[in-house]
């Protein structure tokens, strides 16, 4: 069933050229980010390689390293192209880790609540609803202020801000599955409750969760960039895209646009591409739009 489902899914997906292009862009960015050292002339985090003489040079400037800085350099003399690829690495890392942890926590919570039912379900979902009524950005803002700077702290902040979306989705899907005959059948066997929940109910809740996951990974990346821009995200020694943009912002008013604009373009291309892929998956999985 899995394979047939996937090839049918791919056939539908292929029809939307924009979504295919977006998928290719995401793949290309992933490749560039993973293999960043191969595509960059400089390790932007190696302070010994940086020369302040090269700082804030426009795109195309040939610096002390003897190569052209195709996108210019930032205020510390970093080659921007290198800094962007390494920044993409951090942004993607944060987005993927935060997204997967939030998916795991949220899905477990939502499915468990739906299975348990009764008061514990009402209590758990009430908390989730309550959290959903607060904007994620505010939660993330407060948490990163409380926890301080650092990757782990940032991931905790992002997960706390996002798990509720997964919990709500998983709960909705699992409640629908809970009353189906195959679950009744599985419950009537001596199989342990945990297997029924995680091997039977959970897999059937995956499609809507995948849709939420694509959107939430893009959101996590954007949230991380926003927090870093506000100076609350990651430490400045390993600048993510948001930090690069933030660092360049002060030079923009004097016309040195490239320090902010190029990392920003990279960020936007990444987020828009992920969202376009997610949109197509959602349309395909939405039974209401099926003809």
């Amino acid at each position, binding site marked *: 069933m899995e394979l047939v489902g996937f090839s049918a899914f791919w056939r539908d997906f292929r029809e939307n050229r924009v979504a295919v292009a977006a998928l290719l862009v995401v793949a290309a960015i992933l490749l560039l980010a993973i293999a960043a050292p191969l595509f960059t002339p400089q390790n932007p985090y190696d302070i010994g390689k940086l020369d302040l003489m090269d700082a804030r040079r426009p795109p195309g400037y040939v610096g002390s390293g003897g190569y052209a800085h195709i996108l210019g350099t930032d205020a510390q003399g970093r080659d921007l192209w290198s800094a962007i690829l390494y920044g993409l690495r951090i942004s993607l890392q944060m987005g993927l880790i935060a997204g997967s942890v939030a998916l795991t926590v949220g899905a477990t919570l939502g499915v468990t609540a739906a299975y348990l039912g009764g008061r514990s379900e009402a209590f758990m979902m009430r908390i989730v609803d309550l959290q959903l009524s607060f904007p994620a950005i505010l939660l993330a803002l407060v948490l990163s202020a409380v926890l301080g700077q650092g990757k782990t702290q940032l991931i905790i902040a992002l997960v706390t801000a996002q798990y509720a979306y997964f919990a709500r989705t998983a709960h909705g899907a699992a409640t629908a599955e809970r009353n189906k005959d195959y679950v009744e059948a599985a419950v009537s066997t001596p199989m342990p409750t945990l297997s029924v929940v995680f091997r039977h109910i959970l897999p059937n809740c995956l499609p809507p969760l995948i849709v939420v996951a694509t959107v939430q990974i*893009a959101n996590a990346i954007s949230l991380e960039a926003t927090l870093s821009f506000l100076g609350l995200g990651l430490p400045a020694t390993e600048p993510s895209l948001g930090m690069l943009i933030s660092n360049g912002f002060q030079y923009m*008013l004097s016309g040195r646009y490239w320090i902010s604009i190029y990392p920003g373009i990279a960020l936007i291309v990444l987020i828009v591409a992920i969202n376009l892929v997610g949109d197509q998956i959602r349309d395909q999985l939405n039974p209401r739009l099926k003809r």
Partner: protein
Amino acid sequence: MLGFVIQRLLQACAVMLVMSALVFIGVYAIGNPIDVLISPDANQQIRAEVIARYGLDRPLWEQYGVFLWRLLHGDLGRSFVFGMPVLQLIMSRLPATLELTLAAVFAATLIGIPLGMYAGYRPESPLSRVIMAISILGFSVPTFWVGILLIFGFAVELGILPAGGRGETVSVFGVEWSFLTLNGLKHLFLPALNLSLFKFAMMVRLARAGTREIMLSDTVKFARAAGLSEGVIMRRHVLKLISIPIVTVFGLELGSTMAFAVVTETIFSWPGVGKLIIDSISTLDRPVMVAYLVLVALLFIIINLSVDLVYAALDPRLRRARA
């Protein structure tokens, strides 16, 4: 209906209590405000005196109790940095944020809903595709980045609009407003545009999704069979039916737009509460942080409560189920 209202009110109070405790404990985990309060060369006696004056030597639960007691009397404490009552400080910044938020949300709703309805009515037309493309961008592109682009485009390159600040204000009943002067409006335009883009995208999508579903419904079929013009059907029937989710979102978004204003205010140096909270986080001004968060929590609880009640009033099915 009355039982429903009372139940919701009690729930809101419980939530408020829990939120205030969480915020209080959370914020008190951050750094040591004593270093901010007292100059490094102060002697031991002065140190002890200041610590005692702010009650920082007492156990946390006692500090929380004192905080709650004062809160009930409308006293949110004094700012460490500004040396004035926090409530007064926040109130002096609130009009700026309110002005920005309302401008953004109204612009987003008034422009977003008609465009979204059109996109739902003619999903395949080129204009609809353009509208949807803009809304995808509005959803995807982080607010701070749009703000930077706006400043770069309109303030740096074109030089036609100011990059920050509130501009001239007019005092009405002792409150300063920007939107009443031409210069103030110029200052308001870019931040409001920046803040509204996300909401605009959301309104377009909601209106489009709602319209697409309702166009296939029997209501529309019968209305057409009755010979009503398309314009009348859209205005009288479709708009009314899609308004329920839109009212909900409008209410909820008013709050989250105020929260998002943090980012916009920071970029455009808009002197509202959002900029205040970011500044107090960096200066460890605890009373301001706690007060802001408690007030925001209160705001959200009030918004949720009123959305629930408006919902019950708008949707007869909900009314009957609860009666």
